[in-house]
């Protein structure tokens, strides 16, 4: 198959992976022509999760800061968009920008002090902040509607609503992949990885580590905020306990870790695998009530057996054997 010089690109497993990925994306792009409501809905949810996971990957995967409050950006994005649409009578796209800007601004303002913390302290501080933001949304009734929530207008024309939200989420995912690629081949991407590998050394080399961390945090807020904006409008309803649910944080972390933290495609693949797995389990075994138990068990299994994600196996860097699955235990047990 010696055409167009593609044979070089497709030599090796990584090339094949990208080729397969291209075909997969093409299939996804034409899918709404054939598929029904259920599949569009499921895939839209997967796209939103993948987008958030791509965002978490910036701070958690590349920069190495275990952020446990990214759902705050999701919620702020949803609330920002909803409030801009209801109070300022913006149409959806300008409102989405308002939501995203609010999420990024929050990430910068909060990130400057909180990103000085390390390890456990950073992790818990982000959990606490996400909880606090959710509580503020719940208490500040005059502004946010409180626990009654906010009701948004339906998408018009409503018969294309499914397709609209499918494609816009799909575009967000592609934008996220492009952003990852773009950032990671530039100086900013290197500064993130440098912070992850050794923050003090990075500082000594003249990298502005504060800027590196805050930019990673703000870009992860961009992705989660946009996902929240789309989710809020799609759902036509924004509720504090729904858009600030800690489960979303766990799901985006799990997706990233399952696919491969610090890789371009990892979070996307992880989100698909996780969501398909949980949908199948709930659908065929009628274990909907045990949704969170399943999520928890999957997290535990992934953290014990493949904390570096599946990307290493897919790209052929490691062979999927019993021994490689037990490697984590071998190196990290007491």
């Amino acid at each position, binding site marked *: 198959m010696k055409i167009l010089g593609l044979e070089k690109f497709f030599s090796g497993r990584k090339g094949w992976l990208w080729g397969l990925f291209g075909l997969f994306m093409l299939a996804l792009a034409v899918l709404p022509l054939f598929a029904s409501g259920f599949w569009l809905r499921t895939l839209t949810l997967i796209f939103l999760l993948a987008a958030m996971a791509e965002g978490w990957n910036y701070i958690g995967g590349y920069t190495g800061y275990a952020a*446990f409050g990214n759902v705050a950006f999701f919620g702020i994005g949803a609330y920002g968009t909803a409030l801009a649409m209801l109070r300022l009578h913006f149409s959806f796209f300008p409102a989405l920008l308002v939501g995203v800007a609010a999420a990024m601004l929050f990430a910068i303002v909060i990130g400057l002090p909180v990103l000085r*913390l390390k390890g456990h302290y950073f992790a818990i501080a982000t959990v606490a902040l996400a909880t606090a933001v959710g509580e503020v949304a719940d208490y500040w009734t005059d502004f946010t509607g409180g626990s009654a929530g906010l009701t948004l207008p339906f998408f018009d024309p409503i018969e294309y609503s499914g397709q609209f939200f499918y494609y816009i989420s799909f575009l967000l995912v592609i934008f996220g992949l492009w952003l990852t690629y773009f950032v990671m081949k530039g100086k900013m991407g290197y500064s993130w990885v440098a912070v992850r590998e050794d923050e003090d050394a990075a500082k000594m080399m003249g990298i502005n580590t504060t800027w590196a961390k805050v930019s990673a945090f703000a870009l992860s807020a961009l992705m989660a905020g946009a996902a929240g904006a789309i989710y809020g409008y799609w759902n036509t309803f924004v509720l504090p306990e729904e858009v600030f649910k800690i489960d979303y944080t766990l799901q985006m972390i799990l997706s990233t870790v399952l696919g491969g933290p610090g890789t371009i495609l990892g979070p996307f693949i992880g989100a698909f695998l996780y969501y398909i797995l949980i949908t199948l389990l709930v659908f065929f075994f009628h274990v909907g009530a045990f949704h969170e138990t399943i999520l*928890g068990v999957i997290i535990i299994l992934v953290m014990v057996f493949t*904390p570096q994600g599946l990307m290493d196996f897919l790209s052929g860097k490691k062979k999927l054997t019993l021994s490689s699955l037990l490697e984590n235990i071998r*190196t990290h047990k007491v």
Partner: protein
Amino acid sequence: MNYELGQGLVNVLLLTGTLTLVAVGFSIVWGILNIINIAHGAFIMVGAYVTYWLFTLWGIDPFLSIPISMVLLFIVGYIVQRYLINYVIRAPLLVTFLITFALEIVIINLATVFWKGDFRSVTTAYSGAGFSIGEIQIPYVRLAAFVIALLLTGLLHVYMTYTKQGNAIRATGMDVDAARLQGVKIAHTYALTFALGTALAGAAGSLISVSFPISPTMGGLYTLRAFVICVLGGLGSIPAVIAGSLVFAFIEVFSGVYTPGLKEAIALLVMVLVLIVRPTGIAGKAFYH
């Protein structure tokens, strides 16, 4: 004396007892194993439900069920650490953090499915009784909870200071390799430490169930409080936990008096401020004295 102030101070003291018991198990697990046990609050919730069911089904007095919930949660904690967390304990922070997070959502989910999500309370014949000094009210159950909490904390201190196993735990917290060379069985000691933490969580849950309503999701708040207390007091010792609890109880009671509804947010704010001023916590020591 100003009545409101006096009652407030009494409430601070009573709350300090409960909070100390809530935080002390969390603190030793963090200090010795370097694990933030997010599931700590979920174990407290299980302890509360053990007391609730023993009382509701067989009429066992809530204070008598404390040893039962401690033993039960000791066993659970030992198994979790020995056969799960021990396998990945040297992995990066994210791994252990996520595993305990996952344990928390599993426990809460199972509790919600099997025990329903509604609030329940343990109402004994003496629940409402109390005595008063002047105008200051002191319920018997809260006084008893206070005494038992301090008693258990004292026992833990004695155990850690004067027994061979307690010394082994402290030695492991100071230097794992040196402890191993002295013949300490690390895997067992880790499991024992975690089990002590969950047993104390169980006792805390039992005590909480007599004074406050319980529900499957009650635990998250206690995990957060335990963390804030450890940050306020520092990670070094049991007296530090008591000091942290006292400060926290003070903030919570008095901010509660003047700004009801926002006291959790204020406590969180205090924590974030302390963390920003001292990113490693006030004492910032990773082992136990």
